[in-house]
Structures are given as C-alpha cells and as structure tokens.
C-alpha cells in the first residue's frame, strides 16, 4: 500500500475496520480470525459493552461491542456486522476476545514513519484506546491499543453489579470530549 519503501521505519501490517464511518486498525498479528455475529450468552453483572460469551471452537470467548465501548451510537446488527477475534495481552497472559465492528475494511502496510502521535482531541473515542494515527495516502487510520480495550482490573474487582458506575468512570477518562476531527 504505502509507496515510501525507502524510508527507514518498520513496516507493519494492520487489519482495518469501519466503525461509525471511521477506519480503525489493529496489528494483523494479533488477529485470530474474523467471523459473523452470533448470539451470545450474556454475562450477568458485567459492563454493557461486554455482549456476552460465545463458543469459539471449544473455547469460551467474550465479545466486546466496540461501538458501546467507544460510546458511539449503537446500530442494529446486520449481515455486515462482523466479529474480529483478537489476542490481547493482560500482564503475562494472553486472552482471546471478539470485537464487534460495523464491517471489515482492508489490510494495510503502514510504515512506522507514517505513524503520528495521537493529538489530544483526535476522535470521538477516548484517547486511552488509541495508540497512534496511521497515514495511508490521504487517509487516516486510527490504530487501536487493543490491550486497553478491556479494563480487566475493574472487571475482576467484583464491582460488576454496578454497571452505571463502571460507565461513568470511563466517561471521566474520556474527558474532555471534543468534536470529531474527521
């Protein structure tokens, strides 16, 4: 994709997907698979962005709705709705998690030279999830820090019943909210 082959930076591949008209990317090496949406088993007393768990080839895998996680407007799931199954790191452990997104977009090579620091008010989504911004030609891809997508400590602290509290805390960290740059 990128033509700046003569640059010194490191070339990495990213799987990109669309969420509310924005293009997001995750490192392709952390992607375990892509599959259609399937009914989940809700986990009681968990944050609303955790849709539940599914059976992924014998493994129990939680499903995260990224729209809800980023507090975007939710849309009904359609035939385009896909689940990207990724590996996250939590400490020394690896966890497999499914991410519900609007649609899968592309696979891009992005040179590390083409990565930009996240400006303070880059996007609708909270900065804590954004690692950097990747430039592909004229387009911008938001590279996610997928390890931040789930607040494991909050989940395992056992404060599950209080979903509202969980949400209001992540709202705090999303502050200050700014209009989308796009």
């Amino acid at each position, binding site marked *: 994709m990128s033509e700046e082959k003569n640059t010194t930076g490191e070339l990495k591949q990213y799987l990109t997907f669309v969420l509310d008209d924005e293009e997001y990317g995750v490192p392709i090496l952390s992607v375990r698979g892509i599959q259609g949406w399937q009914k989940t*088993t*809700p*986990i009681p007393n968990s944050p609303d962005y955790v849709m539940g768990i599914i059976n992924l*080839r014998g493994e129990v895998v939680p499903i995260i709705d990224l729209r809800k996680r980023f507090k975007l407007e939710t849309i009904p799931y359609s035939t385009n709705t896909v689940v990207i199954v990724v590996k996250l790191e939590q400490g020394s452990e690896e966890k497999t998690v499914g991410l519900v997104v609007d649609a899968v977009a592309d696979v891009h090579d992005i040179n590390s030279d083409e990565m930009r620091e996240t400006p303070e008010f880059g996007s609708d989504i909270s900065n804590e999830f954004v690692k950097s911004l990747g430039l592909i030609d004229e387009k911008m891809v938001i590279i996610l820090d997928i390890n931040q997508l789930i607040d494991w400590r909050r989940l395992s602290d056992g404060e599950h019943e209080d979903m509202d509290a969980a949400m209001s805390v992540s709202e705090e960290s999303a502050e200050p909210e700014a209009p989308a740059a796009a």
Partner: protein
Amino acid sequence: MTDVSMNSGAMDEIRQIFEAECYDGLNVIETGLLALKAGDNNLETVNDIFRGAHSIKGGAATFGYTDIADFTHVIETLLDKVRSDELSVSPDLVKCFLESVDCLRSMVECMGGGEYDEIETQRVKKELEAWMSEGPAAEAAAEVVSAAEQTSVSDTQVWDISFIPNKDYLQTGNQPQHIFRALAELGEVSLTPDFASFPDFCNINPEELHISWQIELKANVTQEEIINEFDWVENECKIEVTARGATEEQDETVAPVAATVEPTRQVAMADNKPAVRKEANSIRVEIEKIDKLLNLVGEMVINQSMLNQFSSSNRNDRATGVSTELDNGLAILERTTRELQEAVMNIRMLPVSTTFNRFPRLVYDLSSKLGKSVELTIAGESTELDKTVLETIADPLSHLIRNSLDHGIESPERRLAVGKPETGTISLSASHEGGSVIIRVSDDGGGLNSERILSKAIERGLVSNSDRLSKQQIDNLIFQPGFSTAEVVTEVSGRGVGMDVVRRNIEEIGGRVEVHSEQGKGSTFQITLPLTLAVLDGQLVQVGEQIFVVPLLSIVETVQVDKAKLNVISGNEVVYRLRGDVLPVVDMRSVFNIKGEKALESFENKQLVIVDIDRNQIGLIVDGLLDQHQVVIKSLETNYVKMPGVLGATILGDGTVSLILDVTTFGGPLLMGKENRVEH
C-alpha cells in the same frame, strides 16, 4: 481407609511416577554430559547434571531403592569434584559418566522386576571410585582389571561350584542371578557358563533354562555357608561344592574374567526384556496436547448433538427406510462420541491416592522422630482430580500434615493428661462436594489458640483492635502473609513460613483453604479445589431467557414454590418454610440482574432449587427446570475474568455457552447485599 502400611497397588503407582522422573533425570544428565564432552567445565551444565543425579538419588532413597541411591551417590560425589574444579573434564571421564548413566538406566528399568547386570554395574562403580582418587583413566582401568584379576593370590579359600539348574528353573520364579548375587556377597565370584546342553535353535523353549554354570568363589566361608545360599532352590538344581586344592584338576574353569563376563551379560540382557516392554506401556504426553484433543472432542460432541437435533426435527420429511438407517447410525455415533469424550477426559484425571499415598510414610517417619504416636487415616482416595491440580496440592498438603503432626497433635504424656487416647489421629479425606473436590486434613490435637492469634494479628497490624471478628475469622488469620514465625506459630500451627504459601499455592489453582478449629479438640484444614477440567453433572435451569447450570451435587431437592410458605423477615429477607425448616431464599433474577418480574408474588409456581452450602441450605428461585446433563467445565478466566457466583462456563448441545453457578459462594456477601433488592 488405609493404615500406615501401603498396599502394593499404590506402591506401584508411586513407582511408576518415580520411574518417569528417573528417566527425565537421566535424560538431563545425558544431555549435560554430551554438552560437557566439548571440554569446557561450564558450571551451569555441571549443575544441571548434578541436579538430575540428585533428584534420582533423593527419589531412590525415598522409595527404598538403595542400590540406585548408592550408585547415584558415587556419581554425585564425583560430579561435586568436577564442580569444585578438583577434577577436570576429560573425554575419558565423560565416557565413564555416560557408562554410569547406562547402568543407572538399566537399574531403573529393572525397578518393577527383572534383573540388571550387576557385574557391569560394579565395574563402572569401581571405575567411578577410581576417578574419585583423581586417577586418570588408564590407571583407573588398570586398577579395575587388576582388582578383577586378583586371583587366589591372597590366602582366601577358592571354591568351585557346579551349578546345574533344572530346565524348569525359571518357571518356578527363580532366577540364577539371585544366586550369583548372593554368592557375590560372600566373596569374589567368577562365572563360566556351560552351553553344552543347549538345544538346537529350532527346539529352544524360551521359558526353559538350558545353561549351567561353573562358579569360582573366592571367599573364606565354609562349604555349608555356600550350600545355604542354594537353600531356596535345592529342589530345582544340582549343586556340587568343592574346595580348590582338593580338586586342582578343575583349574581350566578359571577363565579370564573378561571372557566370563560376556555370556552372563547376555543372560541378564535377555532377562531385561520384560522390563523394557513395561516401560513402553506408558508414554508421557504434554498436557497441552491432551487439552487440544479434549477441545476437539468437545466440538465433536456438540456437532454430533446438532446432527441429532436436525435429524429428529426433520423426521417427518424423510422416507421411513432412510429414517431408521439414519437414526441407528446417529445413535451409534452418539455412543461412540460419548465414550471418546470420557476416555479423553480420563487421561487428565488421576485418583488422589497418587498423592495421598506418600503421606503414610511421612507420618510414620515424622512421628517417630518427634516421639509422638500418630495414626493416619485416609478416606476417599479414589476421588479423581485433574493431574495439574493434584500435582499442585502435593506440597501444601504435606505442609499441612506436617503442621498437624508437629504442632497439632500433643505429646503422648500431654494427651493422656487431658484425657485423650495416647495415639493421636490425623485424617486425610477427599470427597466431591458441590462441584468441587474437598480435601480435609484433620487432627485431634490441641487446636488453635484464638486469643494468641488475635493478639498477634493486632500486633502485626493485620487487624485493628476495634474489629469484631468471629472465632472462625480469627483462626483463618493464620493464612495471612504477614502472620509468621514467632512464638504464636510454634504454639499454634505452622512454622510461620508456609501457611500463607499454602494458601497462595491453593489459590493459584482456583481453590481455597480455611481452617476450623476447636481449642483442645483439634483442627480441620479444608481445601476446596475446582474441577478445572473435570466433568460435572449439572441441572439446567431457566432464568428469564438464560440457561444456567447448577451442579447436581449441590442440589438437595427442588420444589414448586407455594406462595403461602414464603415469608419476609425484617422487611427484606425472604425465607421459605419447608417441612419445619426455614430456608433463606435467593431470587436468581435479582442476583444476576436479569429482566423480569421480581416481586414476591411472581414467585408463585416457580421452582425452588434447594442447594447445600457447607451444610446450610438455601433456596434459589428459578423460572423452570430443564434437562440434566454432564457438562465439561470451561474456565471463564481463560479469556475473561473470574465472576463471583460463577464456577465456569460450558458449551451446551446446541453449541451455545451456558454459565455454571458456583452455589458455594451464594451464602456469602454476593447475596447478602442482593437479597435486599427483592421487591415486595
């Protein structure tokens, strides 16, 4: 219940584990030696070899294989010299070491029966010992040869023994090596086999013995003593014992040592065969491979039941002939799949006896050392547990038993003084309870001194003066990391280090440990272990649109709710009157925040699942009861987090995931706050 003596089956199991450990150790030694061959005294490599040898020695000594332990000891001593640079590594030395590994291996192979080549072992041992005195290889070898060739130069008496076993000698369970070894204890032995009566190859019956021996024994013993050695087999062979000098013409039997050793070795090798075959009976497989297999089988079970569902829902569309055929085929497939699943699951499960059986010996040794009289009783040793879990609890368990012995059980005098039987009892039991395996270590000793624990805990700042703790809570403070050493512990239980480690080890595998104690009467340590991979018989229950699995073992009974029997106590606690008992009632909808009517009136005609938690019963309100299924427990933690009230998840027949409830936590704070939410 077993007493201190172990049965042979159990011993067999332990031996197999030890055997496997030995092979691991031998491989480590061998790999290390081969690396050393390059000529460098790499300390790390030497240490690796040393550790390998040491663990074999330790194990061998524990299980009473003194020959292996002694032999390994020699290796170890020599290695120590290498480690401290007193001896430099040379190819000859490595060769000698490698030979000793071979000897050790054949000794290990013969642990379960069969005979290893003692002569070769002695030779290598001598060579090792020669190295010990810093002799270079040539000298050592010379020494060995000269030692072996020391003929009747000394003034010891030489005996010639003609040993002609009957053909059916082996069938009586005897082996000529026993005799040779016994003779070797009297003095120096050299053997000359006689194959004269050996039949043609095609007539050989491998179960018959066609060899006879001329034995030369150099020892200061009487003829009677020699004949005594043949006591066992006097009817199975012909023996003639003559003193040398009286029959000097038999001199030709004194063949060179090297020549006599060879044929004996062949016999020994032939005898080794059964042992080698035995080793091939079990293989060590990485747990990961089994888990993968288990996952695949799980998938297969789900696919299979999906096929079943599809078939039965489309039965009407099919021609009758096809229908029967298909149904039969599916029925067979179902059975096979179930069996396959069970078989695979079984691979990981081991009876707790594999761990428990180490303890009688521990108790025996320790009690005699401490001058206490203690009896160990074991119950439920056939309870099966996942291998990983089993391995992890071995150390904590032995720690707890040591504690009970050391600090729990009083001295015999003291016991008599307080009116207890002189012999203390430690009991170790395992059982299934509510989807967990519970292991209890109880003693009838002095129990914990709660006052001292509390004052210690306050002193250490673990609790504050104002905290109001129950005795139970105080006793469990001994598991706190900060609560260690000092006099309280010697008085109470544990050497300080350890109790928190015990707890940590157990919690690492998702278990928990608690202590119940009554001063003067004894303590019980209760370890609750998860069945990480075990199957669980579950009752499927419906709550709203969701299906949960309640472990069948914790269900006492289920009843249909009769609203007239429901009462609300102190405004918010709901109870149910059941045959004179009053049970606290928990609405599953409230616990899990599931949409739907939560008012008390809506309970009418719902189901009340009565579960047993630590001998207390509570009732869970669910919408309906579904099937009972055997389910595979999948950890929710692997990819998510541990949830209070949830034991794990499982995959149901239709491929969907369902949560398994951990009712044992339902009595605790999880529900205490929740019950208030019940609306009236």
